[in-house]
């Protein structure tokens, strides 16, 4: 084994240089080396969606990537999205609509929701459900999560219409 490999990547807007063992997933790297524990590890096989992060602005499973593969990539975690207020409205509607209980799935849900809403417009509830098909929630039954995302989409749409007027 040749041991650790040097990588450099951007995490939440900050340039990071690190030496990583190839077998370490991006999720474990973010949690253990960068101390960003908002990215949760559930199934660690791409089924539950708790580990979703943005790579180059698209949601991906941090458990289905090794950190070495993220070399040169732009990574945003739920902490980064929170800090730059990219999901402040989603967080508010999740709170208002009781779209979380234990909260374990919430970071992944928010990253998924960010991806859904990035397309613009107001998606149908069926479309939201479909886009959430890779996110497991064992508490809420999903209805409240769909409510929150739909409400945010409507609010953003109204906001955009007001700004145009």
């Amino acid at each position, binding site marked *: *084994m*040749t041991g650790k*490999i040097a990588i450099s990547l951007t995490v939440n807007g900050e340039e990071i240089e690190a030496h990583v*063992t*190839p*077998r370490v*997933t991006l999720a*474990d790297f973010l949690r253990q080396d960068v101390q960003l524990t908002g990215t949760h590890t559930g199934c*660690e*096989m*791409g089924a539950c*969606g708790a580990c*979703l992060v943005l*790579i180059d602005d*698209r*949601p*991906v*499973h941090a*458990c*289905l*990537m*090794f950190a*070495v*593969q993220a*070399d040169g990539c732009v990574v945003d975690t739920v902490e980064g999205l929170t800090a730059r207020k990219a999901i402040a409205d989603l967080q508010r509607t999740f709170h208002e609509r009781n779209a979380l209980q234990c909260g374990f799935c919430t970071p992944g849900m928010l990253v*998924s929701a960010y*991806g*859904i809403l990035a397309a613009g417009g107001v998606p149908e509830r069926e479309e939201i*459900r*479909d*886009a959430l*098909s*890779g996110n497991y929630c064992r508490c809420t039954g999903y209805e409240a999560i769909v409510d929150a995302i739909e409400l945010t989409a409507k609010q953003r749409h109204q906001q955009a219409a007001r700004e145009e007027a």
Partner: protein
Amino acid sequence: MKARAFDYVRPETLEAALQVFRDADVDAAYIAGGQSLVPALALRLQAPALLIDIARLQELRGLSVENGFLRIGAATRHFEILNSELVSQHAPLLAKAAPFVAHPAIRNRGTFGGSLALADPASEFPAMALALDAEIEIASLDNPRRVSAADFFLDLYETALQPGEMISAVHVPVASPLNRCAFDELARRRGDYALVGAGVNAEIRGGQVEQIRIAFLSVGPTPMRARTAEESLTGRPLTSESIRQAQEALVADLDPPGDEHTPAEMRLHLARVLLGRLLARLEADE
């Protein structure tokens, strides 16, 4: 669970990647999107000592139309297939199947070539390669070649790829103006592996079926053509009678496996239901 320790390299060129694989004195594997490979490593179903990352190779990128074929670079990601104007124009069946592939986050990483190379019989794209009569371009140090989809999928997870070879691109014949196509699948929950899925790719002139290719997923060890059903439809108009006959003909084409949740007879029944729906959609399109 975590993958066993391995070394990792990211060669700059396709040629170099092939050479690294050949020169490796340990078990090596290529990784592109990794959406099937990484879980397999985590579950220790596979434990290569060397991963060769091919996801960024320029030779595997790009979508273009050349000589009547749509060339899809092997490292094209599923979301790129879903969003591509070229795909929806020239290979509409692929565009119709793409929303059924896994979940959005998987589609953001998984690659088209990777899906074909894995040859999961429950996957959408391998079956669509068959329905589209696609040719698969194989990069190899000794024997670079193009293989038709019909000769590519050999058995469960087994393809025409030899050790050290990889798919570099897939060439799909450009759809003619007569093209009519449809895709759908039946699953217990949306996003789950389908109980049965199928794509129909036809040329229809004045209501008459001139050519038709039907391919099923999740009904056998490989993607499956339904040749008897195709023959029963060719040269005839699409009517409720011809559709019924094609549904009946499926018994000669498919011999699906059964399990405790989905007996073989039920899967065949579902395949008939699905084929009926798809052909009715073609008829409605006319």
